[in-house]
């Protein structure tokens, strides 16, 4: 993918130095059961924030809250410095134009082929068809799936669907990418391919992102590897180095139990966290 083209309003926001995502005392429950309870955290511009935690801890709900797909019962969510509560429906749709989202089960449209799925957002924005075709090819080249452009989602493997979903999320050069378990349910080799794409996207476009994963191995791969632009390969950071822009957030039973850097996580004294990461 080409370098991110930053819109003037986004340039103004970046200059302000504010967090891209900010949760302030957010709580939400369903049918009398608390899913997230008093969650507060910030994600700075250019940061990759990995969400870890046991299944059912409220990670996917948090992701949907961040994109305004559901509303919290209490608390404030600010995306690009603007409160979602203060935005009307039209403004939320405009905000989403800056956000790319990869869903747990890919969520590709069954009735559309790969090309139309990836092009969906550009078609909605009435971009010139010639430009759409070029950008679709560019996005599919990024995920190394140019050859499946005419296929339908049902003809693709789980890993391929996930990669097409990534292509659909990055086609509009978003300023924030939300990955909801991009490696969930995939075999280790395919998971590695997906994580390499996430690292490539992080190091080429420096896009802010939130990523949910159940696999600690994937999380640490993200923290300890980088994309070598010259060799076009993902490699381990020299001298056991750690990517400074990658940070962690651990959720358990709807509460934040850790918010910090990779080193802080690996050196934690919290018994539950130690048990979880070991």
């Amino acid at each position, binding site marked *: 993918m080409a370098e991110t083209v930053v819109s003037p309003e986004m340039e103004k926001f970046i200059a302000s130095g504010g967090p891209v995502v900010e949760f302030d005392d957010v709580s939400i429950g369903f049918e009398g059961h608390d899913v997230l309870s008093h969650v507060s955290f910030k994600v700075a511009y250019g940061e990759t924030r990995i969400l870890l935690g046991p299944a059912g801890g409220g990670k996917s709900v948090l992701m949907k809250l961040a994109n305004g797909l559901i509303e919290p019962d209490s608390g404030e969510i600010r995306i690009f410095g603007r409160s979602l509560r203060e935005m009307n429906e039209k403004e939320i*749709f405009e905000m989403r134009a800056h956000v790319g989202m990869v*869903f747990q089960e890919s*969520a590709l449209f069954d009735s559309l082929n790969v090309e139309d799925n990836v092009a969906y957002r550009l078609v909605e924005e009435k971009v010139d068809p010639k430009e759409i075709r070029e950008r679709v090819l560019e996005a599919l080249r990024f995920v190394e799936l140019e050859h499946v452009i005419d296929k339908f989602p049902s003809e693709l493997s789980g890993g391929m669907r996930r990669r097409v979903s990534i292509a659909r999320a990055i086609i509009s050069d978003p300023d924030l990418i939300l990955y909801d378990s991009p490696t969930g349910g995939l075999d280790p080799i395919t998971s590695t391919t997906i994580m390499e794409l996430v690292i490539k996207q992080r190091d080429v476009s420096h896009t802010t992102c939130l990523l949910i994963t159940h696999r600690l191995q994937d999380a640490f791969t993200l923290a300890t590897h980088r994309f070598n632009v010259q060799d076009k390969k993902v490699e381990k950071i020299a001298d056991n180095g750690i990517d400074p822009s990658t940070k962690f957030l651990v959720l358990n039973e709807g509460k934040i139990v850790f918010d910090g850097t990779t080193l802080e996580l690996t050196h934690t004294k919290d018994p539950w966290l130690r048990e979880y990461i070991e």
Partner: protein
Amino acid sequence: MRFSPEAYAKSIVASVQEYSLLSGRSLANIFSRPRYMADIFTQMDSIGVGSLPIVVLTGFFTGCVLALQAAVSLKEFGAVNMTGELVTLSMVKELGPVLTGLMVSGRNASGMASELGSMKVSEQIDAMRALGTDPTRKLVTPRLVATVFMLFFLTIISDACGIAGGAFVSVTLLKLNAATFFHTGYMSLEHGDVIEGLVKPIFSGFIIATIGCYYGLKTTGGTRGVGKSTTQAVVASSVIIILVDFLVTQAMIGLFGR
């Protein structure tokens, strides 16, 4: 969990509110941009042209049965010649609109609920919203416009087929005169009857599309939930079509006096 009448009553009120909001929004979308014309035409083809065979067959055989049954009773009064009048009036005022509504409901309310339900449980609806598209505008409004528009014409076709079926039975089995059948049928119709028969599909089309989409969009619980939504959509739309048919008939009797 303990049954609470209060929670049950609240859930019913909430469902009615959600349904009303969805219907209102999908109607309001017709008058603002963006409009998804290609989706409207696709739905017209799927709902209208796709339902043509069942509507033609149902209409034709209903007309046949109506003629057979009517002849038995009319014979007792020596009025077999009035079979045309009875078949035509019944088809145009009542059976054409209601049976077409029920057949299209069985075919399309279920189709809409299962399609949208599958999209909901596989997060495609959320993906659509995340990609900046309002699902009500993209999915519900085209189905609403297409169903109302096509059901109107399907009802006319059903009426015609029913009358043709009645004529077929009258001529071949009852040995009646075809000209008499059509003449008595034509003469029996008044403007009010035709208007009544053409107003009903507008309501039925609205009910089929909004109920089908409502149950589809509120689907939860995976593939089992999709099956449940589909059944609920067909049952609810069929019952409401008959209920609204009664209300419209009552209103039309008030307006036209017959």
